[in-house]
């Protein structure tokens, strides 16, 4: 175990540098495993809602006239229509209000929305108000929340004007998944992973303690051009030499110098804008779990209003656009490499890319709070132990988690599996 986080991003299998497997993939065949393990593996996963669904398009907006929430987009227009009183009005979605999602191909330079401006280092996290009801001083600690109640007259305050400490974003995506739903999903997720889970974790498991947190993200639209160069090989002949046990396969191949260029636009790429959340080193933290429940239906985000945050906690943004630029470059390069993959299929022996270049012609940055239900368990251990998260996407319900393992139990099961296989191998060797 390393004693401190490494300076560079972790790489290799098991790190977020690894392209994640497609959903539902498992390297083991569940049918070949004993009953209890198979049952766990085959139990259903918590269902994630398809955010393209029409009924989610309303966010948490209510009809300003009658308060009903049965609201639909009027087909063919930007208008929203209340299905109860037929009132029509312009939605408060930032997508339309700020013209996001349009003209990405014409973006030039770096466009930064007002809530995504650089953080002023001198600005404090504490914001105080004079209560309009009774005149008392009320303080809001923006490190952890955006609303506070005056303890004299019970008046509720929200931080609504944009201050330069990074706590007020441009937009917020309200919670859609209710707490009971999140609890049920977490329980379902953990029930699929009980056999080898840490005993203390199972004993202390109380999903009701899940908390709703608004986490800070930068939602980026970008317009870029990428170039990659390397070598590819096409197999021309395959033959075997030798006989019996010395039979060996040989290949002949043609080597090509391959170059590819692609121009592309990316719509609503979410980047963690909190320094600690952006560290995805799986050896020291489980932030990759929160990263894995992305993306959100950011198209439905509404203009910032602190009242969405009452009852939830929030984390403050502490990274500026300039600090996130390298992350954007990196992800755009990955996207470009994924895009060109289809054009090099004829190289059946693979391609080794050796050089890559990216030119971000234009990008647009919007600061947004995204809703996440977080359950955490602290596993004691060396170097402060490990904080395990189970996270539920507050919009789609996508659930991911890290369950601490009872190592001796898993080791024992692995040894048992190995012994059975070894016995089989000895039997085969003895009979051939």
């Amino acid at each position: 175990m390393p004693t401190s986080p490494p300076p560079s991003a972790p790489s290799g299998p098991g790190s977020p540098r690894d392209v994640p497997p497609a959903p539902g993939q498992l390297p083991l065949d569940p049918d070949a495993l004993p009953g209890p393990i198979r049952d766990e593996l085959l139990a259903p996963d918590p269902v994630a809602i398809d955010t393209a669904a029409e009924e989610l398009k309303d966010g948490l907006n209510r009809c300003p006239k009658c308060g009903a929430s049965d609201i639909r987009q009027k087909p063919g227009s930007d208008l929203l229509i209340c299905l109860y009183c037929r009132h029509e009005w312009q939605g408060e979605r930032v997508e339309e209000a700020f013209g996001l999602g349009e003209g990405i191909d014409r973006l030039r330079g770096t466009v930064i929305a007002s809530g995504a401006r650089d953080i002023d280092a001198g600005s404090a996290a504490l914001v105080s108000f004079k209560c309009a009801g009774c005149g008392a001083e009320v303080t809001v600690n923006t490190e952890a929340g955006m609303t506070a109640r005056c303890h004299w007259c019970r008046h509720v305050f929200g931080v609504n004007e944009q201050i330069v400490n990074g706590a007020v974003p441009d937009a917020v995506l309200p919670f859609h998944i209710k707490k009971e739903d999140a609890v049920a999903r977490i329980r379902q997720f953990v029930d699929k992973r009980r056999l080898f889970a840490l005993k203390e974790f199972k004993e202390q498991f109380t999903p009701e303690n899940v908390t709703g947190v608004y986490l800070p993200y930068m939602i980026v639209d970008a317009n870029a051009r990428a170039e990659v160069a390397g070598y590819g090989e096409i197999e021309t002949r395959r033959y075997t030499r030798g006989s019996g046990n010395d039979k060996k396969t040989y290949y002949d191949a043609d080597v090509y110098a391959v170059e590819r260029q692609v121009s592309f636009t990316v719509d609503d790429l979410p980047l963690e804008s909190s320094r600690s959340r952006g560290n995805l080193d799986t050896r020291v933290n489980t932030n990759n779990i929160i990263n894995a429940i992305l993306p959100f239906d950011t198209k439905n985000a509404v203009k910032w209003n602190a009242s969405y945050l009452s009852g939830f906690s929030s984390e403050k943004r502490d990274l500026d656009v300039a600090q996130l630029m390298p992350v954007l470059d990196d992800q755009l390069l990955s996207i470009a490499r994924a895009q060109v993959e289809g054009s090099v299929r004829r190289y059946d022996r693979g391609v080794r890319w050796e050089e890559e270049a990216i030119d971000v012609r234009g990008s647009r940055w919007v600061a947004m709070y995204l809703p996440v239900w977080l359950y955490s368990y602290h596993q004691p251990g060396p170097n402060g132990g490990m904080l395990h998260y189970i996270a539920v996407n507050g919009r789609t319900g996508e659930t991911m988690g890290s369950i601490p393992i009872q190592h001796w139990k898993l080791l024992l099961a692995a040894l048992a599996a190995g012994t059975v296989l070894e016995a089989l191998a000895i039997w085969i060797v003895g009979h051939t």
Partner: protein
Amino acid sequence: MSDDSALWLLLGPAGAAGFYWAMYRYYRNTDKSHAFERETRVEAQPITGSDRKVDTIIGTRETRIRGDNVDAYRQRVRRVRISGDGGSEDDG
């Protein structure tokens, strides 16, 4: 004992390690992260490029090109500056 039977005897240790590794990932999900390559809306213009035959290999025993990284999108390679004019040329 032949090479083949020695290989068979590795089945036990390999199976144990494989089982441990697979279950570890299933519980800890250390391999999961946001699959932005396929979950983000990307609109790409037609891909352009060139392919030039530079060499022929005869009788190699390797099944793939050495250092194959065609599907390891996130593995960064040497960064160079963009070669074109960087402008809005749309070559077909």
